[in-house]
């Protein structure tokens, strides 16, 4: 059996996408952020560990394109009282690895080489997000799962899952995607 290792270039490209997404969220820029997602893209933040379904169980967030579009308009609305306060974040992403190492890395590698549309891969990472909002600094942390798909010669996000380590605690408002 041949062990497949993703090329540095493929890994770098995917890392850059995750950093780009984090940087839009750091600046609360949902106009830039939404363009990283495919038209059928979804964003999910479960409320229990190992949650299986976004539809048959309550979630903190489960947005498809329609709700992402509403949210990016809402965040800029002059009369959204909860958005009166600046939102400043600092996301740190690390421990980036492919879901099924050999298989997923192979797919990413091949896609990178062939520049093949519709190729896909799943990437896990750990994150810390420091968020300053309404006079309070909150630390969120947990694991991201990004399902990526190759479209028009670049990686796009088809699905992002955010598992907060304290997802089932009594949390305060989460004013923006993490």
């Amino acid at each position: 059996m041949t062990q497949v290792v993703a090329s540095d270039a493929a890994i770098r490209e995917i890392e850059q996408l995750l950093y780009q997404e984090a940087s839009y969220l750091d600046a609360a820029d949902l106009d830039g952020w939404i363009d990283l997602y495919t038209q059928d893209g979804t964003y999910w933040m479960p409320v229990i560990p190992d949650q299986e379904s976004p539809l048959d169980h309550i979630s903190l967030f489960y947005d498809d394109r329609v709700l992402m579009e509403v949210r990016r308009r809402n965040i800029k609305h002059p009369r959204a009282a909860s958005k009166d306060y600046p939102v400043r974040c600092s996301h740190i992403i690390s421990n980036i690895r492919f879901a099924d190492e050999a298989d997923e890395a192979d797919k990413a590698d091949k896609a990178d080489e062939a520049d093949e549309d519709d190729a896909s891969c799943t990437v896990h990472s750990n994150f810390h997000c420091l968020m300053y909002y309404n006079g309070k600094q909150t630390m969120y942390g947990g694991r991201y799962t990004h399902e990526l798909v190759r479209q028009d010669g670049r990686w796009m996000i088809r699905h992002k899952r955010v598992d907060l380590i304290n997802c089932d605690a009594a949390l305060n408002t989460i004013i923006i995607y993490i």
Partner: protein
Amino acid sequence: MSYSNASIADLVQPTKLHRNLYVDPQVFDLEMQRIWGNAWIYIGHDSQVPQPGDYITLNYGSMPVVMVRDRQGAVHVLHNRCGHKGAKLVDKPCGKVSAFRCCYHGWTYKLDGTLAGVPHMAGYEGTGFDKSDPQYSMQKLASSSHRGFVFATLNANPPTLRDWMGGAGDVLDNLCDRSPEGEVEAAGGVLRYEHECNWKLFLENLNDTMHPMVVHQSVVDAAIDYIKTLPEDSPRRDEAEIIPPFGASYEAFEATGITGFRYGHHYDGGKTSIHANYSVDPDYERVMLDAYGPERTREILTFNTHNTLFYPSLTIKSAVQNIRVVRPIAVDRTVIETWSFRLKGAPESMLRRTLLYSRLINSNGSMVGPDDLTAYFRVQQGLQSSASQWVEMHRNYGADQDLGDRLVNTGTSDLDMRTQYAAWKQYMTEAA
């Protein structure tokens, strides 16, 4: 200062409320004793403990309690405290046990709370300690349920649950009648949302129909702006039925009416509400017609209330099948829980819509709940000011119509405030 009954009564005037109601920790402590210690407090739904030994834990006021089903099938609400040194006996949100066993010295209790075993009894001989003395068992709260909704109270002499609910109980019945089998079960988990405000600010908002068009303008505008960009033949979305009614006009909310009852309960809507124009799933309609026939089905589905408060701990949306539960923590801190319910015998699409609603409107990450919470937070902050000792509640004062068992007024009135605070005053002064 300490409060006499007269000075407590003075905090609530016919058209104004003293700010200490919201900011004084002493008032909060008295409320915990006199309101939360005497009213029927919502504990949970019996579908959360389907089998013997199944339990859930929660706080009743600040006291840890456990709801458990015993071997005979009866549901008990017990103080979650060992009769020995007082340790909490179970400390998971939910679970299953064959008996309660203390983690500290191994005292064990039957599922009805009776003390069953104390290790190494020899040392107690001749000491006067009697294992069968009920004071060493897990203490029971008085509990009672209506269609699976379990309430408990520390009140030694409470009214019956049905009498206490009064006409507001019709809404709990309507929630269950929306199932073709007449039964609901808790499903799809819970959202817990920390609110940095006094618990009463959340209650006051439930039937406050003068706020949605102001507080929720931003999400309604955002949704409508986006919907406008979509082609006309775009598929129907539940979101497009759920969000825009939050921006309904003053006149529309006026027409919904508010109904108030004894003990502080009230609802807005009845003939109509912001949930009245939701599409009806044809598969759901069919199972309802099969179960109830056309006339009764229409009666059930057109009883459209918005929020119904069972003062002080439970608010339900029968038309949406979710509930919110109030858990006060401190004078300026409250946790709100949102639970969703499955209509037994209805298609799963109904539960999915309920969960969508809970997520879209009540979640910590939603575009609706956080704007409400910001308003409560600012009231909590603003009332630190000594500019005035009072908050105002005059709307339609003097025009509440007394129908015997209930008061009614226009949907934009402060009838809900008057109803709540009449009960507040009664609990706070009579129960002393």
